[in-house]
């Protein structure tokens, strides 16, 4: 007879693996979903770029070519030599830079008022700012056209700039106000006691701390102004005054669409947004106020 006691193995495996495997399946599901979303977002961009490098017969062939078999730059030369291209580039640059600059200045001042001063009707005003963004653009086009034509701003870049500002400012003010509320009021008070004027305290202390907010706002304003199509299409008639997005539409004519140069043009139009984002994104550093006050 053996006196050795046998110890049964502890049945831990099934208890532990079940939740773990379920977790893994769930994780896989989310990852797969993310990949689908990524594909949906990225594919049009990829197709635009790849089409831009394909010669005409490849573009129209019934068997899709995923990678250009005979890459060519002719679409780009065609696009650049298309009438009014440089006018459109100039117009877009003017409109976008003015909108970005003006929206930053105006939004900073407006956000300052909303965040730092208490005045009658402040709260309703803040709500209204958010509320006006809910109105669909299409519903506003006709009244806006009538209004702008009365002040002779149709077919003028200045008119489009004003319109873009009205769409960019609410978001910009709202965003900057949030950033301003995050800056402790003691910082500007301290600057004022140290010898700065109220405005000096805003500019010397608050403005530098708003860096990330200003960058976020400017990216938004840039994208809005650069990519906008409907307003520019409705308000700018003369070909010399059109912006790039309207110019792109000129590839679609009654006789059909010139896909190669259109995609090349579209690729060229996307470049500034990407370049601008790459240039400024490093400035979006959150937590800049860390260390200002005891945390």
């Amino acid at each position, binding site marked *: 007879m053996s006196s050795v006691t046998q110890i049964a193995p502890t049945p831990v495996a099934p208890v532990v693996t079940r939740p773990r495997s379920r977790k893994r399946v769930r994780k896989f599901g989310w990852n797969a979903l993310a990949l689908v979303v990524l594909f949906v977002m990225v594919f049009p961009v990829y197709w635009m770029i790849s089409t831009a490098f394909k010669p005409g017969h490849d573009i129209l062939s019934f068997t899709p070519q995923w990678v250009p078999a005979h890459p060519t730059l002719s679409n780009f030369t065609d696009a650049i030599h298309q009438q009014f291209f440089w006018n459109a580039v100039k117009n877009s640059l003017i409109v976008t830079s003015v909108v970005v600059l003006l929206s930053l200045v105006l939004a900073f001042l407006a956000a300052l008022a909303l965040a730092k001063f208490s005045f009658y009707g402040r709260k309703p005003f803040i709500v209204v700012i958010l509320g006006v963004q809910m109105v669909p653009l299409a519903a506003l086009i006709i009244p806006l056209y009538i209004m702008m034509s009365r002040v002779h701003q149709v077919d003028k870049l200045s008119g489009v700039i004003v319109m873009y500002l009205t769409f960019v400012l609410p978001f910009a003010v709202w965003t900057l106000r949030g950033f301003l509320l995050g800056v*402790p009021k*003691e910082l500007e*008070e*301290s600057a*004022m*006691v140290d*010898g700065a004027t109220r405005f000096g305290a805003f500019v010397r202390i608050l403005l530098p701390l708003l860096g990330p907010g200003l960058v976020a706002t400017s990216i938004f304003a840039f994208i809005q102004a650069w990519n906008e199509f409907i307003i520019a299409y409705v308000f700018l008639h003369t070909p010399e005054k059109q912006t790039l997005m309207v110019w792109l539409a000129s590839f679609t004519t009654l006789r059909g669409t010139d896909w190669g140069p259109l995609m090349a043009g579209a690729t060229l139009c996307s470049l500034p947004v990407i370049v601008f984002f790459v240039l400024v994104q490093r400035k979006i550093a959150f937590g800049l106020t860390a*260390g*200002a006050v005891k945390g």
Partner: protein
Amino acid sequence: MAQIEFIHVSKSYGDTPAVRDLNLQVDEGEFVVLVGPSGCGKTTALRMVAGLEEITGGEIRIGDRIVNELAPRDRDIAMVFQNYALYPHKTVYENLAFGLRMRKVPKAQQRERVEDIARKLGLADMLDRRPAQLSGGQRQRVAMGRAIVREPKAFLMDEPLSNLDAKLRVQMRAEIARIQKALEVTTLYVTHDQVEAMTMGDRVAVMRDGILQQVDTPQRLYDAPANLFVASFVGSPPMNLFEADVDKDGARLLFGPTQLDLGGRSLPELAGRRIAVGIRPEEVREASGWDGARVRGRVLLVEALGAEQLVHIEVAAAPLERADLVDAAGQPPGPSLGVEDLERSVTLLGRFDRHLLLTPGEAVEVAIDPRLLHFFDLETGLALPTADLPAVAGVAG
């Protein structure tokens, strides 16, 4: 350097008064501490001096100038904020030099002064760092340095130590007092911590509900509180307070079964009245060897503090009914459960020698020296003048 003067200053937010008819003078080079529980108006008073808060009524003078309408930057004062308010995007050097730059001090002189202050405060190696890279104590010193480097007429400090841990607070307390003494700059310092107030101030001003209660040297404040609030607020642990009757001759205090002989300190002027009686914990002593008045009690709790022990003794007496006259936060715990007559017992706190062996539940006799008792009016809370002790001066409300 200049004196700071509040003359009938009041401040209200809408209908809510924050400071009421404040009269206070901080002399040249003096260190005055404004102390009181939160919401008592002390910070508002300080911010009015800085120009960060508008003055509703009265006037504030710095030196010989009325500053009511002056912008903060024109008042030539420096302020240290509770949360330091260091500029996070600037280095320590830039933080220290900011005030000098605003006042257009020549660059060479700026550098000289900043480096000098940094050396004195032990910040010389950190001039290139940003506030986020500093410890709490270092940030505190930068905030102090920023005030000192300007050489202003007065320092205003709004609870500058409240964010530090206990050890560092004690250290910085001494350091601030030392710097103030060395520079002899008029200083108005706000705190809710009465220990800080007592240890730092040349004089201490106690505020409550926007009203100045008493201004005096820390010792006088402790020895002769003007009213029940000051008596209960100043001192840690706070003064023991209870109600008692003065007998018809004014020779004895009657509470519970106790008839406390007042000995040489008879109170003919209070004869027959019910009054509030106060005694500091260190004056509640164990009675062996004492041939004067004694009070019987029972030990509830013994707290060993190392150097001494804090003993809670339950005594038959009536607790104060007017809780609104005292500092609520400073009141000792109520009577224990299991006592038949809850209404009629109070807990006396006593500071006893650590060698004395006492256990909870034990009956004990404590010695009370009648000369060390404080008497207060039950209606107004004001200290009662007695023949041997005149009423306290400096009361404003």
